[in-house]
């Protein structure tokens, strides 16, 4: 009888824990992130930042290709305000199906090619990297 009760309490505890975890995740997904000043896209390959693109500066859509080991590639398309993967060498093409992202909530990831595209609000960049002239000539 006592054991019966213990099992029940354990079940209720685990059930409550799962419900709380699910609720937290739901809130996390639904509450949008702030980012009024446009975003900067950071492209990571094998965990290293290989390129940063300001999406606000892109007034014309363009594509470029990122290649990796064993001839794998991802064709990335930059549009004004969004970025995504057009085509890729990975077998499942999940990265292409993830479409174009417009905010920092979810990155575009290609696990087979170890490529991640993340967006971060632009302000951060301007603080850490103040506007400098490209070259100075005398």
């Amino acid at each position, binding site marked *: 009888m006592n054991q019966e009760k213990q*099992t029940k309490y354990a079940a209720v505890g*685990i059930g409550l824990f*799962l419900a709380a975890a699910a609720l937290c995740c739901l809130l996390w*997904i639904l509450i949008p992130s702030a980012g009024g000043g446009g975003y900067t896209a950071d492209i990571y390959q094998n965990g290293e930042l290989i390129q940063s693109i300001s999406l606000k500066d892109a007034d014309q859509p363009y594509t470029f290709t990122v290649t990796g080991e064993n001839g794998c590639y991802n064709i990335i398309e930059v549009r004004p305000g969004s970025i995504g993967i057009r085509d890729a060498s990975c077998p499942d093409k999940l990265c292409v199906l*993830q479409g174009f992202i417009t905010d920092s909530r979810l*990155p575009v990831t290609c*696990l087979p090619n*170890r490529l991640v595209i*993340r967006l971060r609000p632009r302000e951060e960049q301007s603080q850490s990297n103040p506007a400098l002239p490209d070259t100075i000539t005398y």
Partner: protein
Amino acid sequence: MSHRRLTALALCTTLALAIYAVESAIPPLVPIPGIKLGLANIVTLILLRHTSLKDTALVTGARTLLSALLFGQLLSLLYSAAGAIFSLAFMYLVNRLLKNRYPYLTGAVGGLAHNAGQLLTALAVTATPGVLAYLPFLVLAGILTGLFTGFCAFYGDKYLLRHLRWLKD
């Protein structure tokens, strides 16, 4: 290992593999890597309830290895092995705590642990903290799909149960 036990374990592995094969024919429902129903977990759950941890680990391990060899690549073996080890460990503990009852709760914990293990592996492989952005999606999906497979095990285990007595030998 007696012939009967070997045969029963092999049959369970085949069943899990067949379920896995059917599931991999279903196109991905959401374009987030790592989210799937995990129907093969039904077999793991039923075995965990009615046999020992050793038998369950044998069947789950064989299924994970074979499914990666038959349907995936080497990298997918890494992910599925991490998921399988995590979920089996947590499901074993929870199932013991719940005294073999409420398999849907065990399943939900297993789904959650599976996805958490895979995300940690992805974090280690890609070395990008950015993949943690998937955490809420994967946790939520793990709980929901785990509940589903748990209910499948709850209603399905009477069909498998009469074959499992072989494992008692």
